[in-house]
């Protein structure tokens, strides 16, 4: 099989993570010959989703100096409350028995319904490969409790946590934010240029509760966020409302690992070649032809351009990695928050956490079986924060205690790991483009910007992921599309037309 591989490519992409897949698809889409390789036997690299077995195996894997996933450990918990009479009592064995029902993300994300990725998926027509669930609740911690933040107009109407005057103030504030920019000369907002968003919020006479809704969940800012930045974030949130469901967010069904695969699929449709479990042993630049020579499995391939994910040998040899994101992944048999937040078995809940000083933050995503990411009756908690140290558990301790000390969910499995990034650009990488490791962000904006940037450098003239046509828009060359005839009518109409013409002809003759 391997011998059938062509030897010459416009672009070789190493690693099938989100950013690499994006670049591979974009290249293939504009007619470049693309070879996409991955050392792993699965797609997605650190952007992948795993079954329960596979996650444990991945976390057990030996860490090499260049591994992006490190500091991993996991624990199975036996719950004391376990009883014989409990029909749905989960333990290590029963969870592992349903291993294939899990899609456990290393890098879970939530998409803004009108955000960069959704726009890109629509624009490129890759959206037909993906399925989403609207996030059910955007939450915040208020006085130690997890409460739902009213997002939409009907949320504001239905919520019992705000008084009617508060409702009016919140709606008015959000409308003002939404309209901001349409008339930038507005005196009210001009005054706040260069000041903080919090100052602006306080000047709007909103109550403490509304202020936390906006700061924690809607604008997602801190006390030092600038007015302009806060406005922009609020607008981003509001701009995504009312598109799908009740919140401005979407979660990919079956986990975020699906997304890189959607791009890979488009790449393959346009002729890209895929090889998993295939490492590149060495790369050299042929100064005569200005091409890269890649040796892989005893074969030499020639490539005009090479893009690689960080952490892949041999290109990352000698690169020092440092912790970038600290992750916690928990499986529980009970959800977080009250019944209201988990109606009918729950869906996807998003919660942004802040430490007591407000200087550090983390995102929590709670997934139920409706996402297709775990079996019915279990919940996944994904906790993500920017790394401070080589110990993800201690980085997350302040947040796990906020979550688990009071509500005490029935946790069955807990794991911690670090996603690392290189601390400096490799000097050997002058001609090879390295993608960035996953950034700490909610959506994929930075990853897309990174892919767009690299693609623009590779092929400055080309369009980045133009719309791929639907099958019915494609005609096979040689047919004259304007020679439309009865055959292109819907079948029933055609039959009817035929009958009619015959019938009227007959009648004319009779008359």
């Amino acid at each position, binding site marked *: 099989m391997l011998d059938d591989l062509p030897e010459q490519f416009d672009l070789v992409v190493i690693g099938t993570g989100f950013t690499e897949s994006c670049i591979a698809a974009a290249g293939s889409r504009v007619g470049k010959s693309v070879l996409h390789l991955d050392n792993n036997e699965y797609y997605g690299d650190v952007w992948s989703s795993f079954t329960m077995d596979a996650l444990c195996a991945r976390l057990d894997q030996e860490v090499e100096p260049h591994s992006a996933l490190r500091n991993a450990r996991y624990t199975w918990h036996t719950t004391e409350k376990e009883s014989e009479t409990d029909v749905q009592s989960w333990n290590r064995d029963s969870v592992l028995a349903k291993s294939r029902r899990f899609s456990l993300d290393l890098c879970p994300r939530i998409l803004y319904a009108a955000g960069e990725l959704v726009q890109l998926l629509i624009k490129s027509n890759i959206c037909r490969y993906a399925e989403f669930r609207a996030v059910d609740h955007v939450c915040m911690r208020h006085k130690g409790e997890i409460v739902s933040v009213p997002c939409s*107009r*009907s949320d504001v109407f239905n919520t019992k946590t705000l008084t009617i005057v508060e409702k*009016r103030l919140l*709606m008015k504030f959000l409308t003002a934010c939404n309209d901001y920019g349409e008339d930038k000369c507005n005196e009210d907002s001009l005054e706040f240029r260069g000041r903080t968003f919090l100052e602006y919020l306080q000047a709007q006479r909103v109550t403490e509760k509304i202020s936390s809704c906006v700061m924690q969940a809607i604008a997602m800012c801190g006390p030092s966020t600038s007015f302009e930045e806060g406005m922009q974030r609020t607008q981003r949130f509001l701009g995504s409302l009312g598109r799908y469901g009740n919140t401005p967010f979407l979660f990919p069904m079956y986990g975020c690992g699906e997304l890189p695969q959607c791009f890979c699929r488009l790449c393959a449709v346009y002729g890209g070649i895929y090889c998993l479990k295939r490492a590149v042993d060495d790369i050299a630049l042929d100064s005569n032809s200005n091409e890269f020579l890649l040796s892989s499995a005893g074969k030499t391939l020639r490539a005009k351009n090479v893009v690689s994910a960080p952490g892949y040998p041999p290109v990352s040899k000698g690169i020092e990695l440092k912790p970038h994101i600290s992750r916690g992944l928990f499986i529980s048999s009970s959800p977080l928050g009250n019944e209201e937040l988990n109606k009918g078995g729950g869906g996807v809940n998003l919660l942004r956490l802040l430490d007591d000083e407000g200087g550090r933050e983390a995102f929590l995503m709670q997934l139920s079986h409706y996402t297709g990411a775990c079996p019915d009756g279990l919940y996944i908690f994904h906790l993500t924060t920017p790394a401070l140290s080589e110990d993800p558990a201690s980085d997350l301790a302040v947040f796990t205690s906020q979550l688990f000390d009071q509500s005490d969910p029935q946790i069955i499995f807990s794991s911690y790991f670090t996603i690392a990034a290189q601390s400096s650009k490799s000097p050997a990488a002058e001609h090879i483009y390295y993608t960035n490791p996953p950034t700490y962000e909610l959506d994929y904006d930075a990853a897309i910007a990174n892919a767009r940037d690299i693609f623009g450098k590779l092929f400055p003239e080309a369009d980045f992921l133009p719309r791929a046509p639907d099958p019915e828009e*494609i005609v*096979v*060359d040689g047919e004259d599309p304007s020679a439309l005839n009865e055959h*292109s*009518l819907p079948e029933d109409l055609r039959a009817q037309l035929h009958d009619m013409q015959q*019938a009227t002809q007959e009648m004319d003759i009779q008359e």
Partner: protein
Amino acid sequence: MHGRVKVRTTEEERERKKKEQALKVRAYRAAMGRIQKKREAGELDNEMLSLTVQILLRNPDVSTLWNIRRECVLEKLSRLKEEETACETPSEEENQTVEDKTGEKKAAAEDKSHSIFTCELDLTEQCLMVNPKSYNAWHHRCWTLEQNPRADWQREVQLCNKYLKFDERNFHTWDYRRYVTGKAMVPAAQELDFCTEKIKVNFSNYSSWHHRSLLLPELYPNQQRDRPMSEEKLQKELEMVLTAAFTDPNDSSAWFYQRWLLGSGAQLDRAPRIAAFRLESHGAVLALDKPYPDIKQLKTELVGGGQTILLESWQPVDKRGTSWKCQQNFDYQRNSAYSLSLSDQKVDLLPLSGPENGAYYFAPPHGTASCSKDLLAELQTQLQSCLDLLEFEPDSKWTLLTSALLMRAIDFSANHETSLAHLAKLEKVDSLREGYYKDLAARWTLEWELAKWPLSADFPKRFDKADDVLLESLPYDQYLVIADEITLPKKLRDKLGESVPKTFVDLKLQS
């Protein structure tokens, strides 16, 4: 090259659409021609049914075709009847077995007619997916169900649920829902719950507020009949609707519903009530609170002085039919108590003071409705919320109007000046409806004047409204028919011209 994929240009696409359109027109014309010929020939057969289906599925708004289908259905049904009666010619000896057989045949015939109806229902269902607001399709559905003695009304309710999920604001569906829930005998309480759910999803929905307004008076009747529903429920409704109004004050649906809640709950079709009445020896005048085309249809009786007199020969005093005179001689007895009855309403008359003989009755148009402590407290809370809101948004149209209405509901005479001030402000902030507010101001002013009138010295002989408060019109003028003298500002008198109200003296009952 053969088999190369190529994407159609917009030019080609347009050309293709044009051709498709032309073919469709041809097919439509042919089918219509065939249908007309068949109808002239009286061929109301299956072919006719299938011909009309083809067109109706594409355009459900061709009334003619639905009419033809109804003819076909009736034709089919009468054929079935004929077949049935043709079988019913049993001979004496076989009587027993034949009865069984006819029983079977009857069931088979019923099944046949049922399948005819099912076919029509399926068609309308498909057509409503094409155009959910097709009057024709909805009407045909109702007609079909009415024809079918075995109609499944419960299924129709489910269908409404489904359609209202697609579009919760389709008034056709709501209207149809009222029709089928009546037939299916769905309990009003269950309907109210359904309605509440829909409002929670999106309160900007005139149809569901209207649906509520029909259910509530039935479920929670008001004993005094001066409020739309029981005070306890009214309080809750007021609370809910104000929440909606505060969430989005620019959405008029909530404000409209609130206005209905604050009203008297009077039904449009209720019988007129006695507004004013004056009697003397030579005749009587009667004013009604609402126009009535022919007072002779209402039985008017005068009881007193030991006799019952039927008042007849009424003549209209105005063109609207709100005031009437009757020239009839009575033997008026000064010391006797009189009462007047109009249909089921009976009122006691008061003797005129002074030397003249005669009696009168007067009920001002704005009676104070019953108001329990709790309801009053709710109204006051709501007013306070509105006033709070006006502090933030002093020009909010709906808030200005509603607070005025709330003030009047609480104590209309004490708040008279303030509510007029709100109207004056509304004329400025909502100048497009200036005339409406002026009219409303005139009505409120007259209501107030008429309420004060019985306290004046020469009541009911003199009505004095000489102050220079500018009135746009003179509503409730029929109430003044019992006065001998009416003083109006000159400007208003000029404006009214011919339509200055007639006084009791003007009517010249003696002559």
